[in-house]
């Protein structure tokens, strides 16, 4: 059979999916990036290679997420696409008629407004990371709650406490205050979900026309407390699609499938890329007062890519891969 690979390398998780010829999601792998995207991508490729049926030919690879360029170079991607377009592609094909996509990931959150299947508007969180997955992670760890149990526990709340969600630092001190006052853990957790949803809707969703069907995806969609807080705030049913946590990768794979269907050969380097020795190093260029931090990626000792320079002095001096 033939199939397609989608890679989504985010700040917190690295997701890899395998799509069959029809574009259906067959396999998916969800890993923690742990601040080291190269090993994460390699580990993911290795895991997915064991899951794909034998004698499968990979016809196309798509990469997305903040580490998309890195992932794209390592795996040999045909399409390197931003997260907005990838997420929108996946949800519009998996949930026909979707009009709003709420996506909350590790370090960023976004809202995508679709009309007739195409992106009409979008927004991402600005300078503030309050209301993203890593803040929930951090608070769960502080309260000694497994992040997996967070949602379940928060649903036991009878009266969620009011927490200021404007800023992660203030939200934390507010939570500590509430906890010292003697409020119940579920009430605090539910209050935190409500605060994050409020912050998301005021900041990311500001002024947007949130009409249904509303899809909630990204790693945080696993949290039932967040889902129910969204339902209460929007007074709408929230759809959580299967594969909600790997939708970016699904979208990237779909875009790769579209791309190669026009007859292009794939740039995929094969699952052997998981075994290749990739090394990244960075240095400060002192060619001008900008002092750009240049990242250099080498494969088995040979430099294959550089980026991070403003003028192109370093990035243009290695052969570039085509971006779809």
């Amino acid at each position, binding site marked *: 059979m033939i199939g397609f690979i989608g890679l989504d390398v985010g700040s917190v998780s690295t997701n890899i999916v395998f799509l069959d010829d029809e574009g259906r999601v067959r396999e998916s792998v969800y890993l923690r990036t742990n601040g080291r995207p190269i090993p994460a991508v390699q580990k993911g490729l290795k895991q997915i290679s064991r899951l794909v049926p034998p004698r499968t030919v990979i016809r196309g690879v798509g990469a997305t997420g*903040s580490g998309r360029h890195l992932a794209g170079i390592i795996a040999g991607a045909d399409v390197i*696409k*931003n*997260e*907005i*377009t990838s997420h929108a592609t996946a949800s519009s094909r998996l949930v026909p008629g979707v009009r709003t996509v709420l996506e909350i990931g590790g370090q960023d959150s976004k809202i995508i407004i679709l009309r*007739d299947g*195409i*992106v*009409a*508007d*979008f*927004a*991402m969180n*600005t*300078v503030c990371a309050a209301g993203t997955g890593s803040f929930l992670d951090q608070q769960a760890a502080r309260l000694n709650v497994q992040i997996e149990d967070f949602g379940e526990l928060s649903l036991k709340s009878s009266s969620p406490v009011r927490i200021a969600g404007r800023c992660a630092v203030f939200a934390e001190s507010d939570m500590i205050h509430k906890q010292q006052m003697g409020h119940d853990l579920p009430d605090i957790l539910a209050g935190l979900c409500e605060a994050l949803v409020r912050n998301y809707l005021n900041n990311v969703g500001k*002024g947007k*026309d949130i009409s249904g069907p509303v899809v909630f995806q990204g790693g945080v969609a696993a949290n039932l407390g967040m889902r129910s807080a969204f339902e209460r705030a929007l007074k709408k049913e929230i759809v959580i699609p299967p594969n909600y946590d790997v939708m970016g990768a699904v979208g990237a794979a779909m875009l790769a499938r579209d791309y190669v269907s026009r007859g292009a050969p794939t740039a995929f380097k094969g699952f052997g890329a998981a075994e290749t020795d990739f090394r990244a190093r960075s240095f400060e260029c002192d060619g*001008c*007062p*900008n*002092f*750009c931090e240049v990242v250099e990626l080498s494969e088995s000792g040979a430099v294959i890519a550089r980026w*991070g320079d*403003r003028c192109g002095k370093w990035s243009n001096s290695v052969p570039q891969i085509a971006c779809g």
Partner: protein
Amino acid sequence: MTVKIGIPRALLFHNFIPYWKTFFEGIGAEVVISGLTNKAILQDGLRLSVDEACLPVKVAFGHVEHLKNKADYIFIPRLVSVFPREYICPKFLGFPDMVRQNVQGLPGVIDNNINMYRRESDLYRQFFEIGSLICGNPFKIALAIKKAGDAIKRFTARVESGLRPDRAIDSSYSEDGPAGRKDTTVAVIGHPYNIYDSFINIGLLKRLEDAGINVLTTDNVPEKEVNDHVAHLNKKLFWTLGRRMVGAAYHFLESPGISGIIHVASFACGPDSMTGELIERKARRIGSKPYLNLTLDEHTGEAGIVTRVEAFLDMVGTKEQAARC
């Protein structure tokens, strides 16, 4: 010896440099302009300025720092008003004072008021006073002011014909360059010191042009067009730059040749938060043009800008494709 006048490439530089340069050269001075913003300038700016200032003001501090040893005078006029009945941001008013307080080892500072709040013709007297600081010949000053006025008129005409101010400054720039030949045009709305400073906006205009997009900006819209569009607002916008941004954006929203609008705002800019809102609401009401808001701050990373711009261009592209089908 010729007097050297240092002019920072910051704040309203892109609006008035043809006037300022022609004027100072007309009275026999040499004009030294600071280089393009770079990391060193930004770092110095951050170190020297007050924390509450917005990024463009911080950047301007850096430019002053980098000019101070290269000129006999630094020209940082107190820009109160550049249009009758309108104001410039208060941070600009206070800029010369903040510089005097925070930058050590300054040469002479020319910080005369530029205030056209009452009438435009007050500008003549104000520049006459500036000229008298350096030049003893009143006829020469008068002539320099006249020449400066002509220079800014020529510059405005070039800009209003569609040339970017940062290119129009360069008189050798050929107008039939790479611009103007592309199918898709995007309008970039923002303060000139944000949209033409490729360091602080992380190469926004170049990114668009490299993606095959033709760019028009706030400054390309003639004054009359701007005023016709803001005339319908309930209340007069008394910030000159804000009025220009809103009027230009409204004009672009109604222009069939424009495929999308990018609003570039400074984090912590009061007027921007309001003009951005006015533009976004209208864009949404009309609903036919993709709109993107980019907020710039010293922490702005390349990834954030790139992702947003790429997604915006995808949105513009699919919309155009859908329209063709």
